[in-house]
């Protein structure tokens, strides 16, 4: 069990050329996997949009049967990160509340099936 993605943010650079858009000296926002396969680990959110699910088609694949194939989308725009439930079976829970979409803030807890992430805004 495990993610296709490396938790080494420098590796993400190779698959995510958009990282070059990051202002110099700023680290991108990230999801910290705190419960689920291979937790704990961190995933940098370097792309403008990123899909998360258990399918290999998901840009961030977490192999848990509790996730839908394409479960959630994260979008970065104007310095904000938004999550969107992609009609998943088990839903996206933000700090315990089932949401359709939301703007994320430092420390927000995202629960997707049996997988839990903590969102970090990144910064200087």
């Amino acid at each position: 069990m495990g993610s296709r993605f490396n938790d080494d943010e420098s590796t993400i650079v190779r698959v995510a050329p958009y990282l070059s858009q990051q202002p110099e000296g700023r680290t991108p926002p990230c999801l910290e996997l705190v419960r689920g396969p291979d937790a704990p680990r961190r995933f940098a959110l370097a792309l403008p949009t990123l899909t998360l699910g258990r399918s290999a088609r998901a840009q961030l694949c977490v192999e848990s049967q509790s996730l839908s194939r394409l479960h959630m989308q994260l979008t970065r725009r104007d310095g904000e990160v938004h999550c969107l439930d992609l009609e998943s079976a088990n839903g996206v829970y933000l700090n315990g509340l089932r949401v359709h979409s939301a703007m994320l803030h430092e420390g927000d807890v995202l629960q997707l099936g049996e997988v839990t992430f903590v969102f970090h805004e990144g910064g200087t």
Partner: protein
Amino acid sequence: MTFIVRFWGTRGSIPTPGGKTRRYGGNTSCVELEIDGQLLICDAGTGLRELGLDLAARSTSPVEAHLFFSHTHWDHIQGFPFFVPAYHAGSRLHVFEATPDDPRFTRLLLGQMQSDYFPVGFSDLGARIATRHFENSVTQLGQVRVEMREQTHPGRSFAYAFEALGKRVVYATDNELDLVLTNPEQAAKDPEHLRMLPAELLAFIAEADLLIADAQYTDEEYARKVGWGHSRVATVVDLAVQAGVKQVALFHHDPLHSDEQIDHLLLDAQKRASLRGSKVEIFAAREGLALKLD
């Protein structure tokens, strides 16, 4: 078939930008209901500006929106002059007046765009803006039934219940519940005592899937602000428990409350509901949050 509720402004009284209010947001009241393709908007506080920008980003098609106002205090109308679709010739905006004999909502939207207050006049807006009325407190918009009810607030305010696709959402902000308690003596003597509310109010809210409620004050704060038109969080909890509501969004956050304080208010509210044996889900409304009612 979708019923989505989006929060664009959750703050009460005045916009509160800044680091202490980032999470729950600083824009004033504005809630969007997207019901099977129809756009309904509750209040035009500063959150409306964000909604307008988002609508423009979602589609280039003309916007048709139905606007419902709790009342005309600044924090509920101030976003309108900044609502991008209002400037587009193809847009159609329907303003629902709660009182047919007094088109106060249209009058105040127009009034706040006089040159003393704003550089662009109401008549310069490109959208077709029409006034509409309720018939016996009810109106039907396709599949959506909307019922209104007068609340307790200086200068009058109105709550709206939206029913569609088997779901019911009640928008009830700027309402001083504590002035209509049916057991005020008991409630004053013991803050933990169940605060009883009138049967007709409970019937209006009964079994709502989502109640969006003015929950501005703590008990301590309210003691200094009686008559200002807002409710105590604990009273909102008791209302929801008695009405059998499924979810409650604490709304119209006090401008003095930081994110951290709202977190504590929320915890207290959840504890109070739990002590009453209620399974109502309580959360604090925050900007950028959308719920889909399934």
